[in-house]
């Protein structure tokens, strides 16, 4: 803890007092914005005299690019970003470029609630977290359908393949350039590989070459039965949501099941939307907040990160009318009282029970694998 | 040879109370060269624009070869107009400007180039074909505008002050150019000018417009010698008006009694005689002669104006400078008004 420059948590809190945290995060959901600004922001102000400044962005890469530019310009201690909602590739980019402030977990009192033994928390897309970020949410891929229109949605990848052929035009997935599209393709990839186990760890060209053709064959086989005969794929998950909402396709999926409930609440999805996981499991991940190396308000950012890990903040976030996101902390480590508050939380009917979902959880791949799969899809399927 | 006739042509610009052109009717013979003459703002340009089809008349009709053309767009009238302010296309070279009309007729490029070359020569701008209009002097621009119209050899040619920026020699040459074209093609030409000499020198018939109305439409000699009324006479440079009374064959006034030529009606009350027709300083005492005082003398180039006074009556005479030279200001001179120079206004 010496290397981060603070002796103990009190010192951090004292330093943080009166500070500001510029938190860059995706800003496309009003409920999340409200949660962050109105709840976390107010609490931080109240408890620690910290003002939280939420900056909505379209794409996390934009924030990463700001830090990158600052590093190139030699702005090493006065950056504009204090906290980023991040995971996966963007985390990797920042780590690769030494853009992160690391090694402070020991300072955070609420770090005790995080189960760092869980590989899906200790690794962000297969990349070791290394005390460079703090978990915020857990998410697991799930499918959604309109129960009023579709009676029996496919419950596994093989079923899906058959279902797509029986229901031509009723399914599509976003292109690999989209985060969610890429996850879907990985599910097919796992299926082709007979499970994720063989693919874990660092990228291996031989293994890839063995599996990839099979995966491409499956996807290409589906292609003529996809929406628009597979001539094109939605560019973004938002487009898929629109297609689903407008009944152009029958299935929707998302890395964050909470979104199903949010979309229903926002009137985007029909009330009869229901969701489910796959029998052969779905990929889960954790998303985090990270502090850039050049944040001028690291102490305040740490206090914010610590607060995010608190039972109260995680509980508020888990409320279905607030966000409905699954907690990143290990609820089992909480007091009984707190624990029961979590378990008694009502669930939005459109959102699958996270506990049930997480029983069949698949790990994420290393970003190098993901890059290779995305490139391979572009070249073998998209064309 | 297309004749043009205007029938009760009237134009009131919106928001103006007095019409700019008021009830003008005239017939212009096919193949004639007619001048629209008048002072500034009398409505000349307005008439021309209506004939060209650029301005709809408020009322009245315009006929080419007895056909009303009011419904025809300008390009279907075969009446080409040269504007008072040139309006050369600024982005085209001089040559392109001149060839514009031919290009519109889809003539082959080679023919256009040849015609433009010839035209440039005729208006004495041989080397200027590739210049832009803004690199020309005022007179050169005017010649380009003229050439741009002449090259089309239209049935009807409308010229608005085509020579106002040209010196006398050049003007003469351009007028000859017009004349030869006119003779060759039988184009009906109508040209606007404020300069009576120009109108007289060029045209067979002159329409005098004053204040939007047609005041007299006749040949130059008639307009000079036998003006219809005082306004017309004044416009044509008459300065000498002596009130008096007519008797049979004579006119009595403060200058004395003058015998009138037979052709002159003896009913009016105003005697007029043109300054250039007065004989001053002759020795022989003839009929219609008297003495007057030479009040002033002004050299005008090819003529000299004498201001003469007899009693209350002041009048002017124009003499060749040579003859005027020996006459002394203040002296008494003999004045003779030749019988044929007298004219009586109503």
């Amino acid at each position, binding site marked *: 803890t010496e290397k981060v420059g603070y002796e103990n948590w009190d010192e951090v809190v004292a330093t943080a007092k009166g500070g500001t945290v510029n938190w*860059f995060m995706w800003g496309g959901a009003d409920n999340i914005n*409200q949660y962050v600004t109105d709840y976390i922001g107010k609490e931080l102000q109240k408890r620690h005299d910290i003002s939280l400044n939420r900056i*909505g962005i379209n794409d996390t890469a*934009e924030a990463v690019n700001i830090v990158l*530019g*600052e590093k190139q310009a*030699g702005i090493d201690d006065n950056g504009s970003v204090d906290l980023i909602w991040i995971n996966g590739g963007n985390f990797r980019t920042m780590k690769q470029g030494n853009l992160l402030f690391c090694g402070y977990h020991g300072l955070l009192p609420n770090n005790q609630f995080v189960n760092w033994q869980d590989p899906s928390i200790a690794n962000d897309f297969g990349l070791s977290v290394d005390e460079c970020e703090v978990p915020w949410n857990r998410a697991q891929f799930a499918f959604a359908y309109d129960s009023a229109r579709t009676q029996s949605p496919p419950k596994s990848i093989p079923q899906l393949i058959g279902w797509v052929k029986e229901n031509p035009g009723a399914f599509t997935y976003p292109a690999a350039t989209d985060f969610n599209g890429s996850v879907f393709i990985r599910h097919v990839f796992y299926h082709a590989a007979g499970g994720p186990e063989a693919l874990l760890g660092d990228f291996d060209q031989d293994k890839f070459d063995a599996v990839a053709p099979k995966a491409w064959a499956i996807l290409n086989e589906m292609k003529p039965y996809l929406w628009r005969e597979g001539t094109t794929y939605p560019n973004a998950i938002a487009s898929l949501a629109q297609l689903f909402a407008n009944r152009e396709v029958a299935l929707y999926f998302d890395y964050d099941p909470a979104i199903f409930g949010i979309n229903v609440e926002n*009137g985007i999805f029909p009330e009869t939307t229901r969701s489910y996981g796959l029998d052969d499991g779905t990929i889960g991940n954790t998303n985090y907040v990270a502090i850039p190396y050049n944040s001028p308000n690291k102490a305040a950012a740490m206090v914010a990160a610590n607060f995010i890990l608190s039972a109260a903040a995680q509980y508020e976030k888990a409320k279905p009318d607030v966000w409905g996101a699954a907690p990143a902390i290990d609820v089992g480590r909480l007091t009984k009282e707190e624990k029961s508050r979590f378990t008694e939380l009502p669930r939005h009917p459109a959102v699958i029970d996270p506990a049930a979902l997480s029983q069949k959880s698949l790990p994420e791949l290393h970003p190098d694998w993901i890059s290779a799969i995305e490139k391979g899809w572009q070249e073998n399927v998209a064309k | 040879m297309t004749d043009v006739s205007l029938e009760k042509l009237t134009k009131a610009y919106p928001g103006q109370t007095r019409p700019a052109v008021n009830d003008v009717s005239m017939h212009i013979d096919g193949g004639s060269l007619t001048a629209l003459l008048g002072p500034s703002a009398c409505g000349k340009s307005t008439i021309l*624009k209506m004939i060209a089809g650029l*301005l709809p008349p408020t009322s009245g009709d315009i006929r080419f070869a007895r056909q009303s053309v009011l419904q025809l767009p300008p390009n279907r009238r075969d009446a080409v107009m040269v504007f008072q302010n040139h309006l050369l296309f600024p982005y085209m070279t001089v040559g392109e400007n001149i060839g514009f009309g031919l290009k519109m007729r889809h003539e082959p490029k080679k023919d256009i180039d040849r015609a433009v070359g010839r035209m440039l020569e005729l208006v004495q701008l041989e080397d200027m074909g590739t210049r832009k209009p803004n690199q020309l002097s005022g007179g050169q621009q005017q010649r380009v505008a003229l050439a741009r119209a002449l090259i089309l050899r239209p049935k009807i040619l409308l010229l608005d002050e085509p020579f106002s920026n040209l010196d006398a020699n050049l003007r003469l040459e351009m007028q000859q150019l017009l004349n030869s074209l006119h003779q060759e093609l039988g184009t009906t030409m109508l040209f606007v000018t404020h300069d009576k000499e120009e109108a007289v020198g060029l045209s067979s018939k002159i329409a005098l417009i004053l204040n939007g109305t047609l005041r007299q439409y006749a040949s130059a000699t008639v307009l000079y010698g036998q003006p219809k009324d005082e306004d017309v006479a004044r416009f044509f440079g008459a300065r000498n008006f002596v009130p008096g009374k007519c008797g049979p064959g004579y006119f009595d006034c403060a200058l004395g009694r003058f015998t009138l030529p037979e052709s002159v009606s003896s009913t009016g009350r105003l005697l007029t005689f043109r300054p250039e027709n007065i004989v001053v300083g002759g020795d022989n005492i003839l009929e219609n002669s008297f003495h007057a005082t030479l009040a002033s003398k002004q050299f005008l180039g090819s003529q000299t104006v004498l201001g003469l006074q007899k009693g209350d009556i002041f009048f002017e005479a124009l003499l060749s400078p040579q003859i005027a030279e020996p006459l002394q200001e203040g002296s008494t001179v003999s004045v003779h008004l030749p019988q044929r120079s007298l004219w009586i206004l109503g």
Partner: protein
Amino acid sequence: MLMQTNRHTENSRDGLSGPVWFSLILLVSWLVLPLIPLAIWSVSRSWYFPDIIPSAFSLRAWNYVFSNTSDVLPALGVTTLIALCATLLSVIIGLPAGRALGLYQFRGKALVELLILAPTIVPGIAVALGLHVVFLSLGLAGSYLGVLIVHLIPTLPYMVLVMAGVFANYNPDTEAQARSLGASAIQTFFYVTLPAILPGLLIGSLFTFLVSWSQYILTLLIGGGRVVTLPLLLFNFASAGRNDITGAISMIYILPGVVLLLLGARHLTGRSRAVESLRQI
């Protein structure tokens, strides 16, 4: 200078023919049509195939927009201010350049044109990062001033090119005439040049304003999140498929432009100068 002797007002006679009216209406409806769903969406809760009108209405989007969380109202002020300042600066910097390009022929003109056009040609992201570095080094990043200056880069080409177009048909002799009548260079500009180029200048300013007004990536990068403008808020929702909030913010977005247009429309289209046409031409 050309004297427009042929203009005349013949309003009553100068109507449009049926087919012309038809195509005009078609064009204009096509221009207005996409804005209508945005307006409806802002008050709808659920509006999906095959509903022709929304199946449920709600003011939720407006509530959000006017809430403190959304930051929309302060952002509206910031955006307007920056756009106005950027416009003013563009005029000051771009007008002379437009004049040089429009009035004169000189060596290297094509190169200058290309250079000025460059910011519109090069995809934003390519320079954005480099620009970010440049601005950081100049210490301009993260400030309103920095954002204002960086906005000039995409706005300037619009101003310069529009003004070059205007000056190409401009007769500088009128300026000479004014100078000869005793006007100083500055007076000449305000009394002679400015009125003559005003329609073009307003257009150029309008475009400049609009470019600044909808600038996203440069504002984000250079502003570093400390300068929050409307597009930053809007684009989040637009790309997230939140049509209701997008619609609501869009309505606010259109507002100043509408005001501006209402004020400027007379000049833009020349109604004030009674542009009349010749009936048959």
